[in-house]
């Protein structure tokens, strides 16, 4: 574009000529490779900064030593190495996995429901997942005794998945008429489900004993402080597998941008694909909720901002959502554990402070579109 403007005598005509030779799919004003590279570099930097941040200070050299030890599979050597590898790294990895999962889940539900407000948190998927996970924690000694024995370390993520999936299906039935999703209905149903799940979670909290209460506290606010490697590996399986699936489904998500009818004409088995995508989203949300509790707004904020930058093409949007979600939650968590150090601010609260205004802004934008 620059070149042609400089070389041509008549800028208007010259610009038009240059545009004529432009390949159809070259993104205009949408520098995708740069966004990808920039995001990756920033994420790497954020990981290093997050590892360096905390009550104990390390040098970058110690981080590199730890990284070398980690990749060679050696045992932890010394306090510094132990703090980095057993305290900070799990938290960093968890933030990345959960953030990526939540952002992609948001991206997918918005794509399937064809609305930027259809965030898993807002439509009740997260609270459904949280309710199921709390039920497992509180009732694992009594009603749900068999469940934990059956599924071992996956008991919590699986239960959260089932809860999230159940809510997704209910919401889907309630909010969709003739293949078109009514946003208002969807969000109102979300409110109702949030209230119901909240009440049920409250009842469970009420009957919980002291130890269970301690386990439950972080659910209400969302925190990454409770993840060990065991939880992380379980979480990663349930996030990365559906994430890969969603990445491969960019074509149906793009076709859905044109509506379900047209997606059908384009040759996609729409109902089957939609169900699979929503299940994948519920799986990612469930996994995130099971380990980190309720962390809202990532699925709302990240895809929205990315659409402004790179457009709505899911070929890019899903992968970039994963990167940005990881980045956002990592930064938020690093902030959360430093602003009021040594206390640990639940990152869910911080995300709500960031996400609330964005949600309001989106509402204003939508209302303009409705008028």
């Amino acid at each position: 574009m620059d070149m042609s403007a400089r070389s041509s005598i008549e800028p208007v005509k010259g610009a038009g000529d240059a545009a004529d030779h432009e390949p159809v799919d070259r993104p205009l004003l949408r520098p995708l490779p740069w966004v990808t590279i920039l995001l990756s570099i920033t994420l790497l930097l954020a990981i290093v900064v997050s590892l360096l941040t905390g009550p104990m200070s390390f040098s970058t050299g110690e981080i590199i030593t730890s990284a070398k030890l980690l990749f060679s599979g050696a045992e932890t050597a010394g306090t510094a190495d132990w703090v980095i590898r057993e305290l900070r790294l799990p938290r960093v990895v968890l933030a990345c996995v959960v953030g990526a999962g939540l952002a992609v889940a948001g991206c997918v539900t918005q794509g399937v429901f064809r609305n930027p407000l259809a965030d898993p948190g807002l439509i009740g998927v997260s609270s459904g997942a949280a309710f199921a996970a709390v039920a497992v924690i509180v009732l694992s000694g009594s009603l749900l005794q068999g469940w934990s024995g059956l599924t071992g370390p996956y008991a919590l993520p699986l239960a959260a998945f089932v809860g999230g999936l159940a809510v997704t299906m209910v919401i889907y039935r309630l909010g969709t008429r003739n293949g078109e999703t009514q946003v208002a209905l969807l969000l109102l149903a979300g409110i109702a489900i949030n209230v119901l799940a909240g009440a049920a979670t409250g009842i469970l909290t009420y009957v919980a004993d002291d130890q269970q209460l301690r386990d439950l506290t972080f659910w209400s606010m969302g925190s990454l402080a409770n993840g060990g490697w065991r939880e992380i590996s379980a979480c990663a399986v349930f996030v990365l597998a559906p994430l890969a699936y969603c990445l491969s489904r960019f074509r149906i998500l793009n076709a859905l941008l044109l509506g379900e009818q047209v997606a059908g004409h384009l040759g996609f088995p729409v109902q089957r694909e939609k169900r699979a995508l929503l299940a994948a989203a519920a799986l990612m949300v469930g996994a995130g909720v099971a380990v980190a509790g309720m962390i809202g707004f990532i699925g709302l904020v990240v895809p929205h901002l990315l659409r402004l930058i790179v457009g709505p093409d899911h070929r890019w949007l899903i992968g970039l959502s994963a990167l940005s979600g990881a980045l956002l939650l990592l930064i938020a968590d690093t902030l959360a554990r430093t602003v009021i150090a040594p206390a640990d601010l639940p990152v869910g609260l911080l995300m709500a402070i960031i996400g609330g205004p964005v949600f309001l802004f989106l509402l204003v934008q939508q209302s303009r579109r409705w008028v």
Partner: protein
Amino acid sequence: MTLRVRSVSLNLHNRRLLENVSFDLHAGDRVAVLGANGAGKSTLLKCLTGEYTAVSGAITLDGRRLGDLPAAERALKMAVMPQGMTLAFPLRVCDVVALGRSRHMDERRSRHWQKAAMEMMDVWHLRSREYPTLSGGEQQRTQMARVLVQIWDCHQHSGDGYFLLLDECFSAADPAHQHSMMEKVGSFADRGVGVLAVMHDMSLAAAWADRVLLLKQGKVTASGPVELLTLPHILQEVYDLPKSLADDYARNNRHWLERNAGQSTFIEQSRSLRQI
């Protein structure tokens, strides 16, 4: 290859939407489906695209039931343009057109086809505009480019076996575009593609179609050559028109038909001239 519709009926919500509809769509056909509002034109189209499944009767493609054909396979042969379309998120014109190739998974390799389709539908200059900012007619032309590029493969060999199903595709376009665009769609029929177009504008149908299918209250009132549109009593029957109006429309349609016939001989002449 023929798309065969045999005594198709459809009941929905205790209402009879289609009753005993039969017709054939052959290779190279230009069929216009006409009728009053609520006559079942769009419903018929949706039966052909498999959107209604509780259809009695038989719709077969080359002897195979259309319902047995996987959606993906059908999309390679049959492109559909529905009446209205709203976008969930603002895509650019070129992105919308590229989606026409998503089932073929060659969005990048088929770029020259996408360009050709956009040029054919006169939207190439709009390619980097966002779809929702376009006017109604421009949106329809963009959609048509997407629909055409889906079966652009028919340019590589015969168009036989490909089908275009269009639902009032240029209703919002200006008259100049309506006629020139329909003629370009008609060029697909010349390649052997079977084209079925639901239309509202009788004169456009008279100018464009070879055959017409006239529906009234879900039933076929008449079907046959496009000359049916020049018969006042048929129009009176199909549209419930008063006689004087029906006469006017019939006269008008004859004019369009003759004009079209003159044009095609002209085109044939110029073709033969070029060959010399």
